[in-house]
């Protein structure tokens, strides 16, 4: 996999292609201070190799989003070790964290597109993070084309459907060819078909270019795209399995029986 232009140019992290996309060792995380200090992540150990699609699931409040934002360099690491694309985030200044983020594609539950910008311009905003962006228009239209939005390039978000908006947001996340993509409930606001289309696209793009995708979701309909499923409960990694094992161990029938036994 080629290093993305961003990583080779930013002063922070040379994209170490040999390193796993994410390597976490003994990560603990707390909210609040003093009396109100509450631990939300307990001794997380996790490796995400390149090219894997990983779905993280678990009940609300289990710390999924916190873990995702930590990996995304949106929060400061308190204790333990967190390496993203070969770069240790522990103890990194907030300015350097900004640099790390440029190698990560973010997809949110809400599309968060600027209403004042066209689809292409929204995508171009991401390209402009690169030191050279003279081909931004071409890059934007190309990726929008790959996501089936050829004829929506110059539409503003208000004239796009929910699925189309989410695809623009995905185009924005992917246009810089980030080696790591973090997605938070990308299908939550979409109907069944749009949601399916979106994840299939993500899967296709990931497989073609050896990207790593970490996706938080409650949406059982899209679990099948995952190479691996991590279940987070109360801040602990409860299970870390392939799709098939997950299906058997987390079969509602099995769970029900366990509950009765308890």
């Amino acid at each position, binding site marked *: 996999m080629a290093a993305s232009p961003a990583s080779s140019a930013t002063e922070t992290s040379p994209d170490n292609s040999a390193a796993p996309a994410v390597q976490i060792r003994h990560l603990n995380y707390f909210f609040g201070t003093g009396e109100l200090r509450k631990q939300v992540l307990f001794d997380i150990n996790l490796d995400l190799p390149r090219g894997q699609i990983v779905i993280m699931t678990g009940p609300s409040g289990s710390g999924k989003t916190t873990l995702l934002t930590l990996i995304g360099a*949106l929060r400061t690491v308190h204790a333990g070790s967190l390496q993203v694309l070969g770069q240790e985030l522990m103890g990194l200044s907030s300015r350097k964290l900004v640099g790390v983020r440029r190698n990560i594609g973010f997809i949110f539950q809400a599309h968060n597109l600027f209403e004042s910008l066209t689809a292409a311009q929204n995508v171009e905003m991401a390209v402009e993070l690169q030191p050279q*962006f003279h081909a931004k228009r071409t890059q934007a239209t190309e990726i929008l084309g790959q996501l089936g939005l050829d004829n929506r390039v110059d539409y503003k978000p208000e004239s796009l459907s929910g699925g189309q908006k989410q695809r623009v947001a995905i185009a924005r996340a992917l246009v810089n060819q980030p080696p790591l993509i973090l997605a938070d409930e990308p299908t939550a606001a979409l109907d069944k078909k749009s949601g399916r289309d979106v994840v299939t696209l993500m899967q296709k793009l990931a497989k073609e270019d050896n990207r790593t995708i970490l996706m938080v979701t409650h949406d059982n309909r899209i679990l099948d795209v995952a190479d691996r499923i991590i279940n987070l409960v109360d801040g602990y990694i409860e299970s870390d399995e392939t799709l098939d094992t997950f299906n058997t161990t987390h079969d509602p029938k099995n769970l029900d029986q366990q509950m009765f036994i308890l």
Partner: protein
Amino acid sequence: MSILGIKRTPLAWLNLTHDRRKFATSMAGVGFAVLLMFLFTGFKNALYDSQVQVINRLNADIVIINRLKNNMFVPEPFARRRLYQARAFDGVAATYPLYISDVRWKNPVTQQTRPVRVLAFNLADPVLPLPGVQANLAALKLPNTALIDTRARPEVGPRKAGVVTELADRQVRIVGTISLGTDFASGNGNLIMSDQNFLRYFADRGPEEDERSFATADIGLIKVEPGADVDRLVQQLSEFLPNDVKVMRRSGPGNSFEAQERDYWRESTNIAFVFSLLTVMSFFVGIILVYQILYTDVADHWSEYATLKAMGYSNRFLLGVVIQEAVILSVLGFIPGMLISRLLYTGASNAIGLVFLMTPERIVNLYLATFAMCLISGAIAVRKVQSTDPAEVFG
């Protein structure tokens, strides 16, 4: 930043103009603050500019006045022989006396008397080079005639040629008009007459009034020869002439008649302070208005801005966006504000005869104030963006 002419997406501009109605409201808000500042500074400046408009029209480089005359309002004439003395100096081309007196004028329509100011001079001297004076020289030579200022206050009655009424209880005939404007020292307006007529009216007005003659003049005008050093001449005259008179430049900064007049009104009245205070208040109103506009933009695009931060945009970039919006607002709000102020200046000037000047310097100063206003608002609003936590966008 751009390569091969490819520019960054103009996010600030697009965000600001996306909602046309909101954009128009924003511009109106800034324009309103600009208008207020223009009006209040306009009134303040009108006070000073009006006081010196007659002085600046006088055809002189240097003036001689009584040492006690610290403003146009004070009726202190000086000995006219000082002017003859001055004429002996090298570099003095000509000297002209100007006689001034305040007097009662009867409104021919309402029969009410109002004070006006009479400016009188030898018609052979080019004292006030106004078109109305040149055109009516012959008529002014007749006894009991005068010119009236068309910009005198309406209280004096019809301001046109042909009016016959009473001035200082004597009949006077208006033979023409000039355009001069009023000020606080001129009562309800200015009249112009010949020095001969001045004597007719003011030589003997009874025991309670000062007798006027050609022995004294109110303002002595000195015209210098081309190329003469005016400042040096002022100094020489001041040294040579007795201390009962004061010699100074007609206008300009420093030791000049114009500056003395401005200083007098600045130091002896609170009007300037009141209007300055109002201007400052408009400035703060503007800050609040612009802050509201920018803050709303930030609040409306909270998650989008946070997303930009998550993507890897720095705080400095977001700060730039908000500051750009502030600058755009300052320019686009200033233009309509200034144009409307211009109309109001013209209207006010026509209505009350004071001078409302919009000089390039004043426009630049007020633009700088508007710019500062928007920048301060931007700086406050930007703190909100900077506190945006990109982690909040998740979940």
